[in-house]
């Protein structure tokens, strides 16, 4: 029986590091402990709330939304059209690279650097706003009011959406098929338009649009913020916008899916998973009668769900430990209060795991833009531009990964500490309760570095 392990995701060559990988893990643990001590001594009161912000410049919100919305819709149409009309080869068609690299990874990086970039480019939101504007004009403002969004639904649609996308990217064997991606993109757009028409454009975008919620969370780490009521761009303290996040049901699940799926992406490239997956596949094929391909997909589905459950379990233990110092608060209340500390961690995981993909595969967009259908056209004269693998070395990637994980987890500690000193009047209780969050951060840092180290050796 041929057992196949597909999907090598990031490309990492041989590293030339003078010390063993695990020493970086130990050093990261020391940095986290020192950061914890530093926070306990130097950060006795909340400093990120209320959000410190300063007006930077004029920002024409409506004009930007219109121009970017048109660009977003046009790009979506081109990409979906390329998926249907172009060659059905993942590497030769623009669509897979655009969706998995430019959109999924590139926008996460852009959200950190520039704030909520996806908002104005969001094609579904742009279409809905244009339709609503036309409807209001034609009916002279007599459009029906949207239905109130159920509180219990919270960010569950976004959590399910990100889980489905992660499954598509990490498990589904046909994930690079352009026409399949186009069908799925249209289905997703249809769901968003229905959701916005029922619950309102802004409400659905903030709760139900998986990608808007995903990039919006990362944008809260950024220093840039647009304020539409003032037509102004503000600069604020990094991380401070996280404290304005409305923590609704599904937020904890969403963050666990985000971290767990990224972890599984790295884990599935490692030696351990490459040993375990064939056995799982054999179980599904031999014992349950699945085909080879379905057996492999089932094995990867188990791995993905296991990793998400593991992340949830670690956070669950951390919050349970915090309850020792605040036994009157139910577990779920504490879990929701501190879940914003997982946002920098999730972002750190994205940067660490996908930096190499963006650095290498991101270059392919130049040639694919000139030949989006893969039919040999050269629209911009860049069709022959290749990928320069010397742009960053394997060692350079490793250092970026380590730095991202350490900075991200220290940022997570800072957010949790800020929350604790604002929630607990006794600063000693605040600090003691955060010992457990330190434990969570150390686990996630060690896990991340172990996964990346193993992926580099596979």
């Amino acid at each position: 029986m041929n057992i196949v392990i597909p999907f090598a995701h990031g490309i990492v060559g041989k590293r030339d590091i003078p010390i063993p990988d695990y020493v970086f893990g130990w050093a990261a643990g020391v940095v986290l402990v020192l950061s914890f001590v530093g926070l306990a001594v130097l950060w006795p009161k909340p400093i990120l709330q209320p959000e410190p912000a300063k007006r930077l410049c004029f920002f024409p919100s409506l004009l930007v939304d219109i121009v970017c919305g048109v660009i977003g819709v046009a790009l979506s149409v081109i990409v979906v059209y390329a998926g249907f009309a172009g060659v059905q080869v993942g590497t030769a068609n623009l669509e897979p690279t655009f969706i998995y690299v430019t959109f999924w990874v590139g926008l996460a990086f852009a959200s950190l650097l520039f704030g909520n970039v996806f908002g104005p480019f969001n094609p579904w939101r742009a279409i809905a706003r244009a339709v609503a504007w036309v409807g209001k004009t034609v009916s002279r403002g007599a459009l029906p009011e949207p239905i109130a969004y159920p509180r219990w639904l919270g960010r569950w649609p976004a959590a399910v959406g990100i889980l489905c996308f992660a499954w598509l990217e990490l498990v589904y064997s046909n994930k690079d098929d352009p026409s399949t991606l186009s069908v799925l993109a249209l289905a997703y757009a249809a769901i968003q338009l229905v959701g916005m028409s029922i619950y309102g454009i802004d409400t659905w975008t903030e709760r139900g649009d998986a990608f808007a919620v995903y990039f919006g969370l990362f944008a809260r780490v950024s220093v840039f913020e647009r304020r539409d009521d003032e037509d102004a761009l503000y600069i604020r303290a990094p991380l401070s916008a996280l404290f304005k996040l409305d923590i609704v049901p599904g937020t904890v699940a969403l963050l666990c899916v985000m971290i767990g799926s990224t972890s599984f992406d790295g884990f599935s490239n490692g030696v351990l998973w490459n040993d375990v997956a064939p056995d799982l596949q054999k179980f599904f094929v031999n014992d349950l009668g699945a085909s080879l391909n379905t057996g492999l997909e089932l094995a990867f589905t188990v791995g993905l769900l296991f990793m998400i459950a593991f992340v949830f379990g670690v956070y669950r233990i951390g919050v349970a430990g915090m309850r020792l110092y605040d036994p009157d608060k139910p577990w779920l209340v504490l879990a929701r209060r501190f879940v914003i500390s997982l946002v920098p961690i999730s972002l750190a995981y994205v940067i660490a795991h996908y930096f190499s993909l963006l650095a290498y595969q991101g270059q392919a967009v130049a040639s694919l833009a000139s030949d989006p259908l893969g039919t040999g056209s050269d629209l911009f004269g860049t069709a022959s531009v290749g990928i320069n693998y010397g742009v960053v070395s394997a060692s350079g990637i490793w250092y970026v990964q380590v730095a991202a994980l350490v900075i991200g987890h220290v940022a997570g500690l800072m957010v949790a500490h800020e929350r604790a000193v604002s929630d607990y009047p006794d600063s000693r209780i605040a600090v003691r309760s955060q010992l457990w969050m330190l434990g969570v951060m150390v686990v996630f840092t060690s896990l991340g570095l172990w996964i990346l180290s193993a992926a580099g050796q596979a």
Partner: protein
Amino acid sequence: MTVIAHAGHWIEGGIFAAPVIIVAGALAVSSVREKRRRRREAGHSDEGGRRS
């Protein structure tokens, strides 16, 4: 069970877990102390209640 046969990789990767083990130990000690402190405080308040 074939999956268990791969435990060697877990052990090899376990060296990364050293900081986790140390922090977990510190958390266990701090939890026990906190529980003892709470029991002591509860005992004192009971005594105080009986005296009054």
